[in-house]
């Protein structure tokens, strides 16, 4: 393989210690991301997808949160071993992040140009003037019309889609190797969502970035990702190439997610739904987190946590009933 691995996360555990007990928000996640590729992390709220991203950037509020164990190799440095200063040099520079809500992620008191230039000045030795010139240039790249004028505007003068472009501009200002986008289009209208996704794809090609895209929307995954990791209750339940996830999903939760999309349903047919709701992350002992909602759950699912196994090269599944010898056929 001549693919260069940008990020290699190994057995990451992030727990939150609360007065009610320990919440195992991320409980043993491993994945790799190649240069120039997009990894989609899918799951419902509380599945640990955002916490995984925040752990990579070491943005977990502590206390109550703590990265208990694991390693996050970015190139050949383990991010979890860096000092805060060293980490600050990476954030926004080599790895940057886009958040879901473009309304709250910008400071209302500074102009857009200022906020983008700030990032550039923090990480590069340039004059304020030069930083502003670069900021305006990057605003042009994310297709904000009349960037020189718009740089003088404040966030409230921008629409939601334009603000998300500003966020992207800010994230890309230092040409990062890795962009983490946490639900970047969830707050946007479909028409604007399509524009923003297309823009991210174009910029990815231009900057040779890797992207981690966190989303609950399988449509967005189908549009943009190369690889997919499905998370449930702090664990990876399935991960594979995007085509395999859509063509040959093997975990019952992935089946449920794929089948519950209304777009697939014929008229008059009932939507497939996953009954019940996501578990309380404090209560899970040694069991499959999905067992209480799984149609196929047997005793073993409630007494042993399934390990992630490689069914085919690159296709990992954590289910007792999906092994090479044994396979459920639920579809």
């Amino acid at each position, binding site marked *: 393989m001549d693919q260069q691995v940008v990020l290699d996360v190994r057995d990451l555990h992030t727990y939150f210690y609360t007065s009610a007990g320990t919440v195992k928000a991320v409980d043993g996640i491993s994945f790799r991301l190649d240069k120039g590729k997009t990894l989609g992390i899918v799951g419902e*709220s509380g599945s640990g997808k955002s916490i995984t991203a925040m752990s990579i950037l070491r943005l977990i509020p502590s206390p109550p949160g703590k990265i208990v164990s694991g390693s996050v190799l970015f190139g050949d440095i383990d991010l979890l071993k860096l000092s805060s200063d060293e980490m600050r040099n990476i954030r926004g520079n080599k790895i940057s992040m886009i958040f879901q809500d473009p309304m709250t992620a910008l400071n209302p008191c500074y102009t857009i140009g200022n906020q983008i230039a700030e990032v550039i000045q923090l990480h590069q030795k340039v004059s304020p003037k030069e930083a502003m010139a670069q900021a305006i240039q990057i605003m042009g790249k994310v297709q904000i019309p009349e960037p020189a004028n718009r740089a003088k505007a404040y966030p409230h003068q921008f629409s939601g889609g334009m603000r998300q472009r500003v966020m992207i501009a800010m994230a890309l200002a230092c040409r990062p190797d890795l962009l983490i986008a946490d639900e970047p289009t969830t707050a946007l209208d479909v028409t604007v969502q399509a524009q923003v996704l297309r823009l991210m794809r174009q910029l990815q090609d231009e900057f040779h970035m890797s992207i981690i895209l966190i989303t609950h929307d399988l449509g967005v995954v189908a549009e943009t990702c190369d690889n997919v990791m499905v998370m449930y209750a702090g664990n990876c339940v399935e991960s594979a190439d995007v085509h395999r996830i859509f063509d040959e999903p093997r975990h019952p939760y992935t089946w449920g997610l794929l089948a519950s999309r209304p*777009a697939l349903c014929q008229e008059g047919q009932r939507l497939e739904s996953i009954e019940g709701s996501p578990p309380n992350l404090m209560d899970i002992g040694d069991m499959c987190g999905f067992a209480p909602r799984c149609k196929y759950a047997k005793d073993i699912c409630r007494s042993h946590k399934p390990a992630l196994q490689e069914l085919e090269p690159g296709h990992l599944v954590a289910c007792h009933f999906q092994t090479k010898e044994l396979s459920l056929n639920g579809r």
Partner: protein
Amino acid sequence: MNETILRVENLTKFFPIPGDTFFASEKNYVKAVNGITFEVVKGECLGIVGESGCGKSTTGKLILQLIKPTTGKIFLHDTDLSGLSKPELRKMRRHIQMVFQDPYASLDPRQTVRAALEEPMAIHGFGSASDRAERVRKLLQEVGLEDYHADRYPHEFSGGQRQRINVARALALNPDVIICDEPVSALDVSIQAQVVNLLKDLQRSHNLTYIFIAHDLSVVKYVSDRIIVMYLGKIMEIGSNSQVYNRPTHPYTMALLSAMPIIHPRDRRDEKKLLNGDPPSPINIPQGCVFHPRCSRAMDICRREAPVLQTINSGHQVACHLCPNNYGTA
């Protein structure tokens, strides 16, 4: 058999916005809803889709008279709701109920589920205390909750369960029409399917009529019999589910549909027809056809004259200068 239950005629809502100076000669308005007319037939689900700011939620609130329309009439059966006095309106409201988007904000945190469900019945003098208790039991059962849930408080429920409680509350008075304003958009995908199924089941068993307002085109496609596509306070296209989704005629509808996320990675296309720009502000509405600045097929006439809704097929109406003359070349 196709009994019209609700009729909206030329409904308009302009919200005044304060001018720059006190003596500003011309007052500005947000033209949230700008002259829309449609009917709702008993037992159907009418979907309203559009981008944010197109006036779909305002339409819902206007129908319930939660805000007063600027002009226009709303007929429930044959009563004009906009002409009613407050007490009369209160009586009529039991026939139209609403389910809101945010299941966390739409339940009173200090009310038990029982109190929340009984309140509308008490206000409208429904039965005796024991009748109501019985009705609460039945409602909970219908929305898939248990008896013991009745004495719990909203914080003890998940988002999906709260939305079930909201649905139960809307059903409490046996309304003629239920307006669902983005009922599932705050929920997780797996929970969305549960609530959508519940709404569909209840519709079948009670012969309910829904107005289903949402921005998620795939959900609307799944639940609706007929669909209204709105843009900047105006109706662009009305048609049956298959007319709108399989034979979209208005350029805006086509653009909306092509922006829908694909369902399988093999459907990826490099060149999607995407709309440029954002929806313009409803304060400065473009002259002529409101959609022309973003329309790839805009002609001269589109900049001058606003198109009116024309019927191009039975039940299929479109407001576009390209239709019906050029219908088929689209």
